[in-house]
């Protein structure tokens, strides 16, 4: 049954376990992320949802004492295979962080960064920067000041710049780690609008603390608790008839 799920998924985990030193953070996680859908991961703080997200582009590799057992399949390739080039994985699987983190460079150079490190030529970069900023719904706000510092933008604009920067790599999947938790409601609405807009082009996986946000934008929802994937289902189904009592309690605000 697990194998069947995986065949239809864009990226999926197989019996994924993760430890930080002796701390067992992820336990036997099997989750499919479907192609060109938005999947939300919810759960109380410390449940492992951000850690799971970082398994999909191997950002946990950076952390000392991190040990992983199990597989993560990008289509049918295990991205933890020793033959896999990790920079290649991170080009295909883009990421946007909780706190907007543009580089201390101009708006233009932020978006161009991924292209420059792969040695793309100038005219191609120019076209893709514009395209990416348009996709991130930021172009109209910045087209007259592309060479201004990225730090001259507001927090919400900076976060959309980070999305544009990720999009410039033309990723198949975008991972969003609580992308709106540092933003005001208006900027949050804009990011949500952007997610829905992008859905037809890329697969989106979003970690959120905001249950309502998961309900508004996601097609599938995963509920995690204490390092386990408790429930995974189409969002509408989970929000109306959760199968697990812990899911029901969390959704109704009994803990979290």
């Amino acid at each position, binding site marked *: 049954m697990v194998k069947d799920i995986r065949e239809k998924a864009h990226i999926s985990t197989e019996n994924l376990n993760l430890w930080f030193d002796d701390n067992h953070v992820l336990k036997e996680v099997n989750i499919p992320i479907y192609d060109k859908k938005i999947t939300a991961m919810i759960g109380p703080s410390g449940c492992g949802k951000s850690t799971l997200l970082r398994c999909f582009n191997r950002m946990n590799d950076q952390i000392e004492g991190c040990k992983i057992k199990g597989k993560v399949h990008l289509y049918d390739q295990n991205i933890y295979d020793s033959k896999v080039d990790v920079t290649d994985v991170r080009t295909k699987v883009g990421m946007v962080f909780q706190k907007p*983190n543009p580089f*201390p460079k101009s708006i233009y150079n932020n978006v161009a960064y991924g292209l420059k490190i792969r040695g793309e030529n100038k005219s191609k970069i120019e076209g893709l920067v514009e395209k990416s900023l348009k996709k991130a719904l930021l172009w109209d706000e910045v087209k007259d000041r592309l060479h201004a*510092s990225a730090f001259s933008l507001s927090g919400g604009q900076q976060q959309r710049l980070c999305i544009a920067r*990720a999009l410039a*790599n033309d990723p198949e999947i975008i991972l969003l780690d609580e992308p709106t938790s540092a933003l005001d409601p208006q900027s949050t609405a804009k990011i949500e609008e952007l997610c829905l807009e992008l859905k037809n082009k890329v697969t989106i996986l979003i970690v959120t603390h905001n249950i309502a946000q998961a309900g508004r934008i996601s097609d599938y929802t995963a509920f995690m608790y204490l390092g386990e994937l408790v429930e995974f289902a189409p969002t509408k189904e989970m929000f109306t008839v959760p199968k697990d009592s812990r899911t029901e309690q969390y959704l109704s605000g009994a803990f979290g």
Partner: protein
Amino acid sequence: MTTIRRIKSFIGINFLRLFILLTASFLFLFLYVIFSKGGSVVNWEFLTHSPKRFMTEGGIYPAIVGTFWLTILSIGFALPLGIFTAIFMTNFAKPYWLVRIVRVAINTLAGVPSIIYGLFGLTVFVRLFKFDVSILSGALTLGVLALPVIINASEEAIRSVPKDFRDASLALGATKRQTILRVILPTALPNILTGAIISIGRVAGETAPILFTAATFYTRLLPKSVMDEVMALPYHIYALMTEGAHPAKQVPMAYGTAVVLLALVLLVSTVAIVIRYRIRKKRKW
């Protein structure tokens, strides 16, 4: 109660003011002494001519040139080496025992008296490498002296680059090397330059390390290559004050040389500060 508190705070604040004034007055007194004693001998001839008549007349041009080259070359040697060491210490830092050894070595080097650098330079660069008494030997010795300051400043600068930038770069598919070269170093550069600026002042003014490695008491000639020995400003001051047969003429010249040395350090530092300012402005965060 409140009156007592008020009096206490009044005394406290004015006590601090007094200390600030005291510190500032030392600086001004220092500048006053040097300039009043040496300012009068500094003129165009003093800057552009060689010493004449057993250093009782003429100028200090060869010493200016010597100090300029010693400083530039020593920083040119120590800055890249220091930055590479700092990159290793902050980004790779394995194996652990090697990092510890390097750190102990750096801190020990920082505390070594400068005359011992002189002896070290004599043994290693002058004798062992057979560079003789030359600009090269002196610059390398001064470079080793500047290394600890530059490494510590660079390490601090690299550590203060937010982890967010590094994560963002790696998440975009950059390699570690690309991340260091394109994000971490450019962001850390202004603070690394601060370390370099401090070193410039230190290196330009050191006498002991060049005593046996680069400096010569007197020459009318300018160095033709880095293998030549040179006159240097700090050593020239020392020579004028201790070896002269005509103190009445030579002591003012020593102070004049000090004025020039100060001005030179100030000039080089200012250039470095302007460069740093420009970089900072370009990459504000």
